């Protein structure tokens, strides 16, 4: 299995091929895994993420562009602007497909261009073009300057001004987290543009077509991927999250909002939705299309509705629709923005610092967003992210971030595994990188008790490895959620059977025992339960069992961890904000805090890491990371 990566130095304009051996590609496949390997090899420790020394990698997987379900996603990996550890972010849209059709599987970008530039990867030819006339344009205007059939990743004013949570935009999809846009801005890189027409190899086209047909049917039959997500979008989870009291409200001072229904997927579908849509190659189609000022645009996702909604005390969806669009144009991550704004509001509430922003008052927010993106007074401080602001005003105890990255719109105090996931996720406080165990503790058809710590370390490890495997192979994470049997959804929420199944999951004696032997114990390849390895085999010819697939995820998680360790992030940083471990989510239930200390040692033990969270040489050897 051969891949072609270009190594581009923006400082000198030099372009060369970057060699990757077939053995390494077999171990990491592509996406965030292979990118983490490259970054670990190439990046000197201790550099400033916004300096020319940082390396930005855009890459794909062998599945990108083949049409396998939900595989249009491409990855961006770099040193994290917010955490100083690793950053990985992935995004739908056609950029990755066009990059591969242009003849490249990945781009490794170094240095800093002397002036604003666009990187053009067209028909296998890489050129660096002057982009001074694009500097200052928003993401929509910038993309309109290129041929409509090209795939683009661009930044807006926020990225140009190196707002630390600036995102990069591709079509209407977004590389949202970790400051990818700021890194592009620091390199004077306004846009990366791809187009090509090469056909992409599929090792066994007949079996591939049959397996894809089977899987698409299974995804359509599954209630999560065939009904809830296409009908209501990711915001379908809003009412469920609110019912479980895990909705961050008023900077996580509360965990539910009486008016949450007004920012739910059901409400949006009833009042705003024009139609649903989806990324290229996706049969799930969870994207929302809504009208704003007579123009059809992308609607907000659950995280945006949660963090710019309930978290700020705002439940008027019209405001959030507008802010979401504004953030996409300016190139700002709505999630980090939401938490940074809620921190600013609590600072004002406590009389520590008044930015003119208050809970439940949406009027000033649009101006604040604009000024943050342009780093204008008095909001320029908020462009540094919540951890920086909290440090300045001695507010770390209620800044809802881990390692510097703001948490998602799920409060972990009644979802213990999620708390552990946030604390240990490699890119910082991220629900997805953390394994999304909240799907079992609240969102999905299996009701794992969110209050207990029993079995949660094993569950978190399993889910983290699964999510990393899915992500590294280029699939959308929702394809994993679509693997649970449809029959489970027939039971009432929190009724006997879902609770029984939840109990079984966390009670399995030493789940980690199974886990250690996993590659040998799981030779299963079922077309309707996690068929990802089957599709990988069809496309690449590389035989892979489900166990080996999960082990690939574990390998990726460990190499990302090694990167973080080398940057000085160890056990001390595997923590949660004080509020989440000491302030009960519900006043009458003192136990509703995250019991991180009770889970972390077990988690390290299952991972076979030292008690400081450092992967053991034995584990690294077993995973093929070290010899």
């Amino acid at each position, binding site marked *: 299995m051969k891949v072609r990566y270009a190594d581009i130095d923006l400082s000198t304009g030099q372009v060369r091929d970057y060699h990757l051996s077939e053995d390494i590609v077999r171990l990491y496949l592509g996406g965030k895994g292979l990118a983490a390997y490259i970054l670990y090899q190439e990046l000197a420790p201790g550099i400033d993420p916004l300096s020319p020394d940082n390396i930005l990698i855009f890459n794909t997987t062998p599945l990108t562009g083949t049409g396998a379900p939900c595989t249009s996603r491409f990855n961006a990996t770099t040193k994290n602007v917010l955490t100083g550890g690793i950053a990985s972010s992935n995004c739908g849209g056609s950029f990755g497909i066009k990059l591969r059709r242009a003849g490249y599987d990945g781009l490794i970008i170094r240095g800093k261009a002397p002036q604003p530039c666009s990187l053009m990867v067209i028909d296998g030819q890489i050129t660096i073009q002057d982009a001074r006339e694009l500097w200052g344009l928003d993401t929509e205007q910038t993309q309109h300057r290129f041929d409509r059939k090209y795939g683009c990743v661009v930044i807006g004013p926020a990225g140009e001004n190196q707002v630390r949570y600036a995102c990069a935009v591709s079509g209407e999809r977004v590389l949202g987290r970790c400051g990818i846009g700021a890194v592009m801005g620091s390199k004077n890189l306004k846009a990366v543009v791809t187009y090509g027409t090469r056909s992409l190899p599929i090792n066994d086209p007949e079996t591939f*077509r049959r397996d894809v047909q089977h899987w698409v049917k299974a995804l*359509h039959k599954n209630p999560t991927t065939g009904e809830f997500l296409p009908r209501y979008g990711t915001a379908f989870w809003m009412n469920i999250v609110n019912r479980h009291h895990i909705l961050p409200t008023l900077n996580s001072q509360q965990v539910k909002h009486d008016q949450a229904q007004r920012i739910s997927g059901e409400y949006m579908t009833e009042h705003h939705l024009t139609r649903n849509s*989806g990324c*290229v190659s996706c*049969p799930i189609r969870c994207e929302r299309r809504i009208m704003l000022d007579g123009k059809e645009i992308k609607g907000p996702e659950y995280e945006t509705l949660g963090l710019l909604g309930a978290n700020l005390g705002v439940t008027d969806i019209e405001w959030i629709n507008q802010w979401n669009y504004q953030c996409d144009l300016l190139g700002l991550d709505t999630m980090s923005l939401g938490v940074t704004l809620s921190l600013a509001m609590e600072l004002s509430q406590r009389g520590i610092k008044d930015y003119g922003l208050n809970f439940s008052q949406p009027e000033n927010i649009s101006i604040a967003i604009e000024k943050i993106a342009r780093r204008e007074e008095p909001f320029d401080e908020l462009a540094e992210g919540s951890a920086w602001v909290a440090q300045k005003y001695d507010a770390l105890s209620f800044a809802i971030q881990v390692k510097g990255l703001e948490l998602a719109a799920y409060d972990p105090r009644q979802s213990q595994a999620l708390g552990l996931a946030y604390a240990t996720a490699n890119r910082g406080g991220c629900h997805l990188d953390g394994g999304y165990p909240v799907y079992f503790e609240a969102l999905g058809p299996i009701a794992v008790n969110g209050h207990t710590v029993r079995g949660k370390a094993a569950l978190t490890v399993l889910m983290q490895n699964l999510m990393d495997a899915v992500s590294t192979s280029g699939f959308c994470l929702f394809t994993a959620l679509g693997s649970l049997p449809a029959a489970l959804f027939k039971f009432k929420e929190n009724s006997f059977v879902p609770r029984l199944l939840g109990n079984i999951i966390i009670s399995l004696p030493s789940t980690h025992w199974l886990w250690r032997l996993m590659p040998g114990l799981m030779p299963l390849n079922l077309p309707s339960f996690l068929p990802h390895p089957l599709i990988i085999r069809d496309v690449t010819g590389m035989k892979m069992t489900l166990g080996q697939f999960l082990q690939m995820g574990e390998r990726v998680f460990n190499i990302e961890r090694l990167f973080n360790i080398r940057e000085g992030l160890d056990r001390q940083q595997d923590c949660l904000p004080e509020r989440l471990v000491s302030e009960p989510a519900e006043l009458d239930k003192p136990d509703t805090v995250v019991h991180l200390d009770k889970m972390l040692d077990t988690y390290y033990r299952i991972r076979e890491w030292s008690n400081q969270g450092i992967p053991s040489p034995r584990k690294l050897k077993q995973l093929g990371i070290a010899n």
Partner: protein
Amino acid sequence: MAYSINDKCNGCSACKLLCPVDAISGERKEAHHINPLRCVNCGVCGRVCAQGAVLDDQGQPAVRIPRKQWPLPVIDAHLCSACSMCVDICGKQALAISTPAYKGDLRVYAVLSNPKNCVGCSLCAQICPLGAVTMEVQLS
């Protein structure tokens, strides 16, 4: 190997206008050129050339075919998952995802929304992962 244009070309630009991947360049009334890095061997240029100036990927002169006999995509709505691979690859904006029949209708699929734009290049049929697109000549 890609398609190419020989010196019989009179620069009418018919091929350039129809090429689904914009692989053909050249000024009007001057000889045109096919970019071999971009050409997808769809044969559309050969079908339209009145001069017989287009050579196929084997170096043989391509045969002109009347437009009525060009194949068009036929989409099996039951098989289609509306994944948009065909819509994305179509260089002529001839395809789109259908409009929901009623509010809340999730059963949408790809349709040939703009048949006049279609040049019968077959890229949609080749890319469809489900085999839901076939190319057929419309006899009527």
